[in-house]
Each structure stands twice: as C-alpha cells, then as structure tokens.
C-alpha cells in the first residue's frame, strides 16, 4: 500500500512535469515556471493529488545540493580564489544592505525588532536553485551578470550559517530564557569538518575514485558519486553548515580531477529531476488559503519584496561597476526570495522568534516571489534587452574552456599513437578514456585525459563535442565504437569521424553508419610485417615496399567492390568474399607474371639488365 502510494506520487510528479514543462517552454516562460505551475495544479490547493508538500520540499532540496556540487565541479580552487572579491564585496554588500533595509521596512509595518530582523535576513537571500537554473537555461552563467549573480549566491550560501546561528539567540531573548552565549565548540567543529573535507578531498578521494572506476561498473561509480555528495552534505549538516555549501566544497576539490566529467554526467539526471521536484514542491506549498484570505497583503508583500530587492541589487551592482547593460538582468535574476528563507523561517518558528501566522504569510510571499522571476525574465527579454546596447556580451571568464579541435575517444595502445602524433605537432586533443590505469600514467606525462565511457552522449558534450571538428574513435570495443559513431552522427552531425576498424565486417558496419575515414587496426602493421619478411627473404627494400603498396591498393579496391554488394543478401556476400580470395591470388599471381614477363621481354630484346634505360616502345 505504502509502496503503491509512493509510485503513485512519483507518477503524478512525472506526469505533471512532462505535461507542464514542455507547454511552459513552448510559450517562452522556461522550464522553471512550468514546474512551479505544475506544483500548483497537483498541490493541495489545485487538484489536491498530493498532500505532503512540505516533506517533498524538504526532500527535493537535495536537488539544490546536487546543483551546487555540479557548479563546484566547474570551479577549481584557483578560480574560486580569483572570485573572492565579487563574492565578498558584491555578495556581502547585497546581503547586508538588503537585510537592513528590509528590516527597516518591517519595523515601519509594526513588526518587533527581532521578527523584522529575522524576516529581513531570510528575505534578503535569493533562490540559488531558481537563479542558477535560469542562468544555465539561458546559457548566461559566463556573462558578467551571470558571474556576479553566482558570486552573490555563493556568499548567501555562506551567510546562512551565521544567520542560522543567530536566530536561536534572538528567540531566547524574546522568551526571556537565559542567553547561553555563543557556542565556540560549534565553530571549531565546523572548521574541523571543512578541513577534513579539504584534506580528504585532495588526497583521499582520487585514489578511491580510481579504485571504483577500475571496477568498470558504471552504476557503482554513479552510486559512489551520490554517496559522496550525500555523505559530505550530512557531514557538514551535522555541524550546522549548509548542505549545499558542503557539496559545493566537495565539487571544487574534484574540479581538477580527471573524473570531473564522469561525476558531472552521473549527477546530472538526479540534479535535474530533483530540482524539478523542488520547484514543483514550491508550487505546491503556496498556501492559497492564506493568499485568498488576504490577497492584497500577500501580493503586495511579494511584489514589494521583488521590487525592493531588484532596486537594491541594481544599486549594489552599479556601485560595484557592473556593465550597464548587464545590470537589469543581474538585478532581476536574484530578485526573488529563496529556499533558504524556508529553512530560516522554519527555525525561527521552532525557536519561537516567529508566531506561526507570520511564518505562513512569509512563506507564501517567498513562494509567490519565486513565481515572478521567470515572468520577469520573459519581460526582460522582450522589453529591456532589445533597448540595450546590442554589442555582444563578452564572457568574462569561460567556465568551460576545453575548446580543442580534436577529441580522441580511447587512449589505449591505439589512441595514444594518434594523440602523441598530434601532440608532437602542436595540436592538443581532449581525450576520453575509460581505463583508469591509463589515465594516471598519461596525466603524469602532462596529457589532458578525462575518465568516462566515450559512447555516453553527456560525456561527449562535456568534452566539447559541440565545438570540436574531429572525433578520433580509437576505443578498444567493437560494438562501443559503433554505438559512439551512431550517437555522434545523430547528435553532432558536424563532427567528422575517423574510426578505428577491427576487420572487414567492422569496416562495412562503419561505412553503413556513414563513416568514410577509417583505418583497420591491424592492417598496416601486418602489411609492414609482411614487407619486413620479404626483405629478410632477400627482397630489396624497394621491391618489398612496392609489393606492399600493390597489396594495399588491391585490397582497398576489393573493399570498395565488396561494399557495393554489401546490401545484397548474405549468400552473395559470402560468394563475393570467396571470389575476392581467389581474385587476390590471381591478381598477385598476375602482378608477378606481368612483372616478370615484361622484364624478360625487355631483357631479351635488349639483352641487358637495364631494361628501362631506353625509353623505346617494344610492341
């Protein structure tokens, strides 16, 4: 029964998402609004299909954690350090100024000082999930606005920690209990855990990942990826830090590891689904009872919040010197209240800072404010953006810059030769390799190698297949190569493929899939060996080489001829193949005959060795 309802709930969520999101996207509102509306529809105030919105909200907040982990993966420590100024300056200014102003407004509305302060702190934070999702969706993360937005969000994630620490103190002061003072052991614990993550992440994680990768079981790797994120989150949560922050830290520490792309693509679907679920849950948790009881107040609060935050963000961004044409977007994307507000208000109510009534009103306000953001983005795109300077936004700092022309899939005995030849000629390639042992060795020699199964679309995309020009398929797996080729032909049709083929059958399968540049993996080696053998039997190097050339040419002709008949039935194929074997013998024989006949003739007519020396035709 329980199981049944779980599956039923999952069915409802997925159905709602599958229906609402495409419609919303089609109408130009983006996926986020689609999820939110889907939540409203299936929630207790819509069709009432789902009752426990709060549990789902809590559970799906893990999507935000995964999101932060994924973002951490794209930021290595050095880059994070470069961002310290916007994080502390811009982020700090935004949070402090917004919280103070909102608290001031709150007291004007007659709230007591501590209630106003806690409410203002919660409302000053934006929704990381919403803002990053929108920025990613619109591919704006690498623009100045996206960059600054991200910095602010990161600061907010950190700011939650002291806020959470302060609320109980405010609570106790109201209820009149003896203030217990700040607990220093908590701070020490937090520092200890962060150190543990940094040290462990740097020295322990990579060997463990290598071991797990060596098992070759993808699901185990996926399991470990999730385990890593959940484990880190629980660990930091234990000492009162934000789970998202812990996951972000773990991500940053793995940003430079070769498993980055693999982790990224393993986490991706969970992240996407959970974030979707999170937005659905936000939609569901909008308490229309409260909204309908006092619609003017709630809508007024939500709009007031958004307008105030937008104004302050604009101001702070302006002072900080963001380019004028990026300012509206920056202000807009962070204008909503966020998921941290839910958490803070929850704590505030539990510790008695808030009466339940205020908590309910504020939560509806925040949820409603989140609904405005996708709409504001649409307005921005339609009304503000066209009036701005049309000069293209110059990316401040590419988050991803593996823009190599060549991707080599498979860097074993075969791919290495290709890669090294390119490398020696100043062409750097992005390399995908699934054998962790190779990766370690190659990294030591300065190659840029990424771990993962190359036939996975997400990994290819992460490796820059969209921008690359050539894909060298050198993987050690016949079927895998075909799968890879098929997926690339379908998803990256511009990418030219050069494939390693096993044998004639594989050549035909590759030709069938539209690959025309191939190399049979053993053919050239075997031919060279035959040539060496001839040489050691006393052939001159020249004659052995010529024989090999002739053999190759004949062989390639045969392939062309065979392929023309490839589509005929199997029996025909077999017959052709037998014919080819005979014709090869005949042909080699005839080459030999031809050569000796010609020479003999010439020799007899000129009675000289230097048969070629006279350019005189002899009929």
């Amino acid at each position, binding site marked *: 029964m329980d199981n049944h309802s779980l599956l039923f709930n999952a069915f409802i969520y997925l159905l709602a998402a599958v229906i609402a999101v495409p419609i919303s996207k089609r109408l130009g509102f983006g996926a986020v609004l689609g999820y939110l509306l889907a939540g409203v529809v299936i929630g207790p105030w819509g069709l009432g299909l789902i009752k426990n919105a709060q549990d789902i909200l809590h559970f799906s907040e893990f999507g935000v954690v995964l999101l932060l982990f994924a973002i951490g993966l794209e930021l290595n420590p050095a880059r994070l350090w470069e961002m310290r100024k916007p994080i502390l300056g811009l982020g700090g200014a935004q949070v402090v100024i917004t919280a103070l102003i909102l608290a001031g407004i709150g007291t004007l509305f007659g709230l007591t000082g501590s209630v106003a302060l806690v409410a203002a702190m919660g409302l000053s934070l934006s929704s990381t999930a919403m803002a990053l999702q929108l920025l990613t969706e619109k591919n704006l993360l690498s623009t100045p606005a996206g960059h600054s937005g991200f910095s602010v969000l990161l600061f907010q994630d950190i700011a939650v920690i002291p806020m959470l620490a302060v609320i109980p103190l405010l609570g106790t002061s109201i209820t009149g209990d003896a203030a217990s003072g700040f607990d220093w052991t908590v701070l020490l614990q937090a520092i200890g855990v962060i150190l543990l993550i940094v040290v462990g992440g740097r020295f322990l994680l990579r060997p463990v990942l290598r071991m797990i990768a060596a098992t070759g079981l993808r699901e185990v790797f996926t399991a470990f990826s999730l385990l890593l994120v959940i484990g880190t989150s629980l660990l930091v949560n234990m000492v009162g830090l934000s789970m998202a922050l812990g996951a972000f830290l773990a991500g940053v520490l793995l940003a430079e590891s070769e498993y980055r792309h693999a982790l990224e693509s393993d986490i991706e679907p969970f992240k996407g689904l959970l974030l979707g679920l999170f937005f659905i849950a936000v939609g569901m948790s909008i308490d229309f009872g409260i909204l309908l009881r006092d619609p003017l107040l709630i809508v007024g609060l939500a709009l007031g919040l958004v307008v105030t935050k937008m104004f302050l963000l604009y101001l702070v961004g302006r002072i900080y010197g963001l380019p004028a044409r990026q300012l509206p977007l920056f202000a807009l994307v962070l204008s909503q209240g966020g998921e941290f507000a839910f958490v803070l208000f929850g704590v505030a109510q539990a510790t008695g800072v808030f009466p339940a009534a205020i908590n309910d009103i504020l939560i509806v306000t925040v949820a409603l404010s989140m609904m405005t953001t996708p709409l504001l983005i649409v307005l921005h795109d339609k009304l503000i953006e066209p009036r701005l300077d049309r000069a293209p936004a110059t990316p401040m700092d590419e988050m991803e810059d593996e823009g190599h022309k060549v991707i080599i899939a498979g860097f074993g005995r075969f791919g290495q030769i290709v890669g090294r030849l390119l490398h020696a000629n100043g062409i750097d390639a992005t390399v995908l390799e699934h054998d962790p042992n190779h990766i370690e060795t190659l990294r030591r020699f300065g190659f840029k190698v990424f771990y993962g199964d190359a036939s996975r679309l997400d990994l290819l995309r992460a490796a820059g297949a969209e921008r690359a020009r050539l894909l060298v398929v050198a993987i050690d797996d016949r079927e895998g190569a075909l799968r890879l080729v098929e997926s690339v032909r379908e998803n990256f049709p511009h990418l030219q493929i050069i494939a390693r083929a096993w044998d004639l059958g594989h050549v035909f399968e590759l030709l069938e899939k539209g690959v025309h540049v191939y190399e049979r993996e053993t053919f050239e080696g075997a031919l060279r060996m035959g040539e060496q053998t001839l040489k050691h039997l006393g052939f*001159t*190097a*020249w*004659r*052995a*080489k010529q024989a090999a050339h002739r053999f190759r040419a004949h062989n390639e002709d045969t392939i062309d001829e065979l392929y023309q008949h490839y589509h005929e039935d199997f029996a025909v194929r077999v017959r052709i193949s037998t014919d080819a074997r005979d014709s090869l013998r005949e042909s080699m024989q005839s080459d030999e005959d031809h050569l000796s006949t010609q*020479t003999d003739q010439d*020799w007899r*007519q*000129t*009675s*000289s*060795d*230097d*048969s*070629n*020396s*006279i*350019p*005189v035709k002899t009929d």
Partner: protein
Amino acid sequence: MNNNSNIVVYFAHLDIERSLINRALCDAVRDLPQVNFRDLHELYPDFFIDTEAEQTVLRNADLIVFQHPIYWYAAPAIFKHFLDTVLMNGFAYGPGGTALQGKDFLLAVSTGAPVEEYQPSGIHHYSFEELIRPIEQTARFCGMQFLPPLVLHGGSCLSQNEIDAHAAHYRRMLEEYKPSNIS
C-alpha cells in the same frame, strides 16, 4: 693505392635483381674499403630521406659518385628527390653553403642504346654530354669538380666480357682515385 680517400657511391636502380650491368658495377666497387656504398632505394624505400645523415656522408666524402642507369635522359627519380632534400640552401649553396666545394663528382651510368644514337641523326638526337648538362651544372653550382663521366653505352648489345671489363675499369678508377683538391 690511396686508402686515405673517402668515396661515397650513391646508387639506385628499379630492378637490380634482374640487372646485369649495374649489378656487376655494384659488385665491383661495393667492397672497396674507401667506398661508402649507398643504395638509395634500399635506404629510403619510402622516399623519406634522412637529410642530416646524408649531409654528413657528403661532408666526409672527397669523391661523390652517382651510379645508376639512365631513365628518360636522367637518373631514377629518387636521385632527383635526393638532390631536392639534401643539397639544401646553407649546405650546398647560398650563404654558408660551402659543404661540397672542392669535392669531386663522378657520374657512373649506363645506357641501353649505343653511342651512335646520341647524335642528331640518332634516335636520341642530342649528344650524351648535352643530355647530362643538368647534373653537370648541379655539381658545378655546388663548387664541385665534375669529372669526365664513366658511361657504358649500348647495354643491350654487350657481351659478359665487355661488361666485366667495364666493371674492372670502374673499380680501378675508384681504387686509384686521389682527391684533386689536395695540394
């Protein structure tokens, strides 16, 4: 006998196994201690000539011999490729290109047709001397002494004795060779 001289013989033939004259000529000089015998097709069947190695060989030689049959009024193609990739600017000519200056150059070649065909009334119309002007001028351009070529005409109608006599003559020439630039 002057064993202090250094001779390099460059050789190419498209079908040495069936050759009589050139095989005899090769066998006649290959074992001489002062001769560095280099079969270009054997060394470079891919035409990927090691420029640096060959420049060193040339630098060390007093006498450079090009031995080959005449194909279409010239050497086999690999000789042309040898010139194009080894006699580089700065080595054989141009600023600092003095490596070959003062060396001797000998052409040791064979033709199918008898010498009478190399005149206006013959099938080849020009005298043999005129036909080999390009290689002669190449040698001169690099500051080498172009020795009178050793030509065996009419390979098509020679007896084994005549071939053997020519080979012996070739061997003797190399044995008795003394660098002309030694003062």
